[in-house]
């Protein structure tokens, strides 16, 4: 049972063909790293996998639940971080405390989201993915803005997720430790 299966997927954005005939299957424990220059369609591929963008051709099959971390923070800026993440956890039926600790955010639960730095926001978006409990993680540039400690925590979380039978599709132009990941080169 694949958690994500793309067959012959093509993507057209703004009248330009970004990629076509793309095949990819992610089994439990599997991972794929999408690489390519700016504008090659890395984010579009992630959005197609998330079902947010329709593929111009091909078939997309996805696990019943997936979690997405992209450039959209999607946390109410006036709320304290703990409550803002709590809103999504309530929808997912989970508890964000463990994920916040895993991303090093435990001490920031009471800080309003608008006061957070770029790296802390990225950690918060990743903590939402960790807390979601979804088997398929879709990460668009997950290491952007993270410091060394943040990247180490991200890589540890990804390894734990795969060890637990999850799968990861990540797009990154930075080096990201995903041992044994399939490489999807675009552009």
């Amino acid at each position: 049972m694949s958690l994500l299966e793309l067959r012959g997927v093509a993507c057209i954005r703004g009248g330009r063909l970004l990629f076509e005939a793309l095949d990819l299957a992610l089994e439990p424990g599997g991972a794929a790293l999408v690489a390519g220059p700016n504008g090659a369609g890395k984010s579009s591929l992630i959005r197609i996998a998330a079902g947010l963008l329709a593929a111009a051709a091909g078939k997309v099959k996805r696990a019943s639940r997936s979690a997405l971390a992209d450039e959209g923070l999607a946390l109410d800026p006036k709320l304290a971080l703990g409550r803002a993440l709590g809103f999504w956890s309530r929808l997912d039926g989970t508890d964000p405390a463990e994920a916040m600790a895993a991303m090093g955010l435990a001490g920031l639960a009471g800080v309003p989201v608008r006061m957070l730095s770029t790296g802390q926001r990225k950690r918060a978006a990743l903590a939402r993915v960790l807390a979601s409990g979804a088997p398929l993680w879709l990460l668009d540039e997950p290491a952007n803005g993270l410091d060394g400690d943040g990247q180490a925590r991200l890589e540890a979380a990804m390894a734990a997720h795969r060890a637990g039978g999850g799968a990861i599709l990540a797009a990154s132009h930075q080096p990201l430790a995903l041992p044994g990941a399939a490489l999807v080169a675009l552009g």
Partner: protein
Amino acid sequence: MSALLLRELRLAATGGSAILPPVFFLLVAALFPFAIGPDSALLARTGGGALWVAALLAALLPVERLVEPDRASGVLDQLAVRGLSEESVALAKLAGHWLSFGPPLMFAAMPAAALLKLPAPMLARLELGLLVGTPGLAALTLVVAALTSGLRSTGALAGLLLLPLAVPILVFGAGLTEASGSAGALKLLAAASLLLVAIAPFAAGAAMRAARD
């Protein structure tokens, strides 16, 4: 759904979209006698219509806060990834928006009616009209907010889209404040409002989906 509804109510309470429309409504009611003059018979005759125009314009105020912040920050994407349909998101937004728009406006109508020296039976008909008509106005605001999300400087465009569509609400709502023929006006107001409420989740949902591309 209930978590979404609570979030909408919290955003309306903290973001000002629950406060601004009734304050604007009251301001119009306070300014109207300055323009018309203190003739209480004339004010009582024209006041009901003036308050309906004020309600219509007040409905425009929250249009930029209703959908666009959620689209820009990725909230709509995150909800879609969790498998919530755009229609149910729109329905939660509609319910939350009406709760933070209709009752405050009905409350503000009482001092507004006093400012315009409206007789008590007319105030009763105005309140009844607002109760029936504000869901339709809230539905229109939501659809226009969804249609214009992702565009820049949407205020004027939103007005051009919303105000013509709100004409039936205005005609029958203002007609209801007249003593004669108010039964027919109430039914037509209810029909117009119901139609808008029934269409809104689908129209706004489709607009949110289209805005994602």
